[in-house]
């Protein structure tokens, strides 16, 4: 078992012979390698869930609620079942067990059991010989509804506990309330030299990943279920399927094929995964369901709309004394990750600035709208927006440069935040310096003419948290390595490559540690029959946690191989080095063999070669209820400067240019990091200027299409500099 937060076996450059690790010359890490699946994706060869075609496969479709809030009185599917080509129709009664990604708030059914909670809620599913037949069958299902009052405004949900959107709720229509205070905020506010306060609104946005959700299920003669799904968390889908279908979990296999983007929108178990599984079990035939773009908008799980009120107290020299927040969170119709969102809305604000005292009071309520969930920067983006505006107002009030104000409040490195989070290295000041320099801030700020200007903001985010969504003491990330005597190594990982390049990342790490060519490494990922558990691609955890697990496994393997070669050569193991596809004697470098030859020596002397590795977090976070939520083994930091102008006659804002600086630690592949930086800035601009995931007065999604839900095209995207 790997040590928590550090590696059992040291790096070779950690010993005296190799000198200072900072001077270590990497062979793979830090170089702009191609993604291992890049060519397959660029040439259309990558296999996505919808590319899967199995013999005898049926196609499934979902019937959805036209009501925002209603009781289901009766469902008559007899006509649909009688339609030629229809193989099965299922309703809520066939899948009555609840699920939900957070064990404490499981409030979802694959198909509505007694009531529907938003327009688009799933009611029934049909499997038929083709999509058109399945669609025709949907139109034959008669559902009798008894409409209930629909909650569309979160303030109404807060004020009015009845009718309850979730009957079992003990808190009316409140989904989660968190009220945490650190230090005497009231005293600090009362004695402060300056206080700014403001109300802010952050509207809802959704992920709009290019690939719609898709799942395929096959039920074998032996009673084993396989589900291929476009999920970003194979492990939680695996657990949820076992629970809802009442199958032994070891009889279920979940596979994530190539995935066309997720951004948090494929983190929950979704209705279609249960439906295709149940339909496959009923019919004995493979079943596929692919959501339409419209359905993707309904299943949503996107960024929560928030109404935020902030008060910030500071001294005359701009040092923050207190921050006080009150936040109303519109959760939509189900809990999803909402418990975490509610904590994150407060817990993740305590950097990169030092807060001597802090309080937040966040309430998430249910409304009869598509359910909200995690989206890139989960729970932290909305408070960050509001608070950075507070800082600008403070700077204005004190006649301070906004960058200078942020510098003065820098929290420092190797410190602890007011809410008990451990901060290690912290490059925020370097980020600020870089965007200040690159944007010409000092020379250009406030000198660009009326209507045009520069703005700055800083932020911090987690690299996973020390808290798995279901409590357990097992590793958060596991890795297995299998060595073949040809010189090939296969990495088995449970992590989900959702386009961020995690499969490539594990290959780079193994190649670095074993001194191999990346091309000689294979990666088998996200297939629960084949790989050890990883908790999945969420909370920005994968590179940190899976990367560390990979280092752990690779170093064990290297120790074994170097030890075997040392014995063969009758030298000390510390003299054996692996690099550039070779293994050599450090003191006598003409003694040199290929990696494959070294594998063969080790296999002959030891056994069939392989290694496992894992990562688990140290104990982190504050000693209070919720103190571990948002506690991360490492934080990343960022600063952005934007140049924007406003057309004063039309009110239209144009963002011309964005300068981005990130401290992500060591960039394992700078090209992939650059892609993340550009993608996140793009998404931020899109949310600020264009996107709006709203409903109309009926509670119906205002425009569930990529024409009406406006994300920027390349033409609409500003120049991004990093």
């Amino acid at each position: 078992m790997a040590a928590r937060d550090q590696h059992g076996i040291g790096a070779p450059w950690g010993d005296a012979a190799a000198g200072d690790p900072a001077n270590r010359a990497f062979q793979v890490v830090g170089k702009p390698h191609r993604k291992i699946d890049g060519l397959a994706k660029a040439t259309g060869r990558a296999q996505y869930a919808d590319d899967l075609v199995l013999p005898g496969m049926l196609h499934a479709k979902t019937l959805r609620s036209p009501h925002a809030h209603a009781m289901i009185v009766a469902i008559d599917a007899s006509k649909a079942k009688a339609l030629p080509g229809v193989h099965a129709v299922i309703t809520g009664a066939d899948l009555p067990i609840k699920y939900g990604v957070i064990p404490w708030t499981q409030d979802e059914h694959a198909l509505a059991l007694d009531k529907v909670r938003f327009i688009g809620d799933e009611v029934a599913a049909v499997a038929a010989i083709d999509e058109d037949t399945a669609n025709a069958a949907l139109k034959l299902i008669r559902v009798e509804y008894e409409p209930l009052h629909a909650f569309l405004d979160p303030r109404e949900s807060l004020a009015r506990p009845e009718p309850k959107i979730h009957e079992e709720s003990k808190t009316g229509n409140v989904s989660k309330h968190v009220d945490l205070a650190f230090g005497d905020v009231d005293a600090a506010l009362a004695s402060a030299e300056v206080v700014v306060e403001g109300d802010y609104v952050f509207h809802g946005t959704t992920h709009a990943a290019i690939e719609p959700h898709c799942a395929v299920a096959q039920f074998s003669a032996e009673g084993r279920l396989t589900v291929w799904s476009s999920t970003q968390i194979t492990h939680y889908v695996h657990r949820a399927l076992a629970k809802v279908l009442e199958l032994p979990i070891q009889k279920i296999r979940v596979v994530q094929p190539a995935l066309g983007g997720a951004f948090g929108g494929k983190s929950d178990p979704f209705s279609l995964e249960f439906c295709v599984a149940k339909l496959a079990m009923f019919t004995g035939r493979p079943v596929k369901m692919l959501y339409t773009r419209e359905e993707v908008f309904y299943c949503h799980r996107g960024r929560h709309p928030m109404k935020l009120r902030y008060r910030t107290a500071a001294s005359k020299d701009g040092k923050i004394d207190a921050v006080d927040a009150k936040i109303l969170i519109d959760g939509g119709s189900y809990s999803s990750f909402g418990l975490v969102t509610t904590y994150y809305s407060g817990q993740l604000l305590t950097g990169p600035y030092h807060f001597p005292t802090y309080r937040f009071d966040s309430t998430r309520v249910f409304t009869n709208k598509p359910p909200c969930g995690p989206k890139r920067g989960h729970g932290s983006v909305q408070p960050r927006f509001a608070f950075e505006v507070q800082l600008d107002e403070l700077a204005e009030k004190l006649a301070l440069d906004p960058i200078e104000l942020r510098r003065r409040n820098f929290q420092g490195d190797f410190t602890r935040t007011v809410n008990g989070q451990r901060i290690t290295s912290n490059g925020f000041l370097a980020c600020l310096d870089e965007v200040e320099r690159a944007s010409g801030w000092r020379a250009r700020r406030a000198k660009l003419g009326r209507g045009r200007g520069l703005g700055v903001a800083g932020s911090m985010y987690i690299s996973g948290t020390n808290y798995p969504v279901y409590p357990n003491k097992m590793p958060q990330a596991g890795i297995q390595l299998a060595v073949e005597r040809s010189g090939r190594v296969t990495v088995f990982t449970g992590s989900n490559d959702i386009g961020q390049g995690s499969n490539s990342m594990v290959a780079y790490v193994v190649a670095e540690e074993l001194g191999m060519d990346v091309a000689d490494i294979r990666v088998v990922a996200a297939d629960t029959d084949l790989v050890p558990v990883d908790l999945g691609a969420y909370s920005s955890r994968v590179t940190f946690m899976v990367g560390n697990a990979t280092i752990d496994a690779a170093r064990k393997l290297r120790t074994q191989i170097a030890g075997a070669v040392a014995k063969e050569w009758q030298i000390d193991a510390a003299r054996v080095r692996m690099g550039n596809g070779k293994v050599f004697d450090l003191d006598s470098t003409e003694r040199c063999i290929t990696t494959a030859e070294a594998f063969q020596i080790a296999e002959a002397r030891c056994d069939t070669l392989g290694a496992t590795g894992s990562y688990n977090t140290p104990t982190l976070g504050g000693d209070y209820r919720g103190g571990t939520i948002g506690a991360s083994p490492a934080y990343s930091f960022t600063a952005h400067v934007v140049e924007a102008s406003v057309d004063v006659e039309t009110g239209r804002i144009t963002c011309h240019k964005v300068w981005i600086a990130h401290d992500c630690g060591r960039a394992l592949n700078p090209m992939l990091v650059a892609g993340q930086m550009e993608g996140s800035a793009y998404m931020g601009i899109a949310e600020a200027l264009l996107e709006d995931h709203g409903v109309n007065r009926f509670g119906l999604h205002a425009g569930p299409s990529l024409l009406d839900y406006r994300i920027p095209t390349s033409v609409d995207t500003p120049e991004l500099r990093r």
Partner: protein
Amino acid sequence: MLRLPKFEVRTPESLDAALALLAEFGPDARVIAGGTDLVPNMKHELVTPRIVVSLARIPELRGVGDAGAGWLRLGAMTSLADVAADARVRAQAPALAQAAGLVAGPQLRTMGTLGGNVLLDTRCQWYNQTYFWREALGFCLKKDGTLCHVVEGGSKCVAAASNDTAPALMTLRAELVFVGPQGRRVTPIDDLWLADGAANKKCASDELLVEVRLPPTGPGHRGAYGKLRERASIDFPLLGVATRIELDARGTITDADVVLTALQARPVRVKRAAELLLGVRAEGDAFLAAARAVADQAHRQAHPMPNIPGDAEWRRAMVPVYVRRTLEAAARGAGPVHAV
């Protein structure tokens, strides 16, 4: 992916064969030109023809040519990209070239045709949606229902004319050539429209728009198009403004025209535009004052409704801004007026 309802495609190779198909199948048939309007509308089950008659194999419907006496003929199947790029169109009808160049995005302009844009179905946020979506509201006046969700209790559809080329063609006094069972008819584009969002064009289902004809313009002709939309890359207009100014040799305005679109069921001509601009030199403060007067008149006339996306009050507030800017662009020989 949304499924396309089942249909049969016919690909006649002559105009007569196309007309025969339309006559044979009547309301069961629809014409497809570029398909950029028809195909999404079919996926939304707004139209579900049994027979789709493609005009792709009738070459005489495509291209820009001389129609004699200084007139230009633009085949109805000429792509919007070709209209926007054509040197003769750019010289003789700059407002049309600009408008065609701002329809949707490059791929859609390559497929989409001038005829298709002239005959574009009206648009409404309560109409251009999937069957499921529309059914959830009990449908609407324009399709399958009896309620109007834009105007509560409304009995007349107010879906908006959303074709960018239509106002430009109106300022240019273009003529449309239709061919039907009764032969050929030529109609000024001004006479095409009805103030009914459910069907805003006087055009029978068994006739075909084959040609758009542009009258000659002189060296003093100026025109520009202004388009308000969310994304510069692709969206339908939230407001479209076409302007035309005629100048004499000394740069004094002898005639002018301003037409707005994307407000209501049909494109709207701004009243008294010529009167307000007549005799003014197309530069300086006097011109600006006259342009502002036209903008004010447009503002009085324009009453956008919440038919298409975008705040209706904001769209109304943008009318004078875009009218003034588009007049100024025309006067400078510039344009289009297009934010971001």
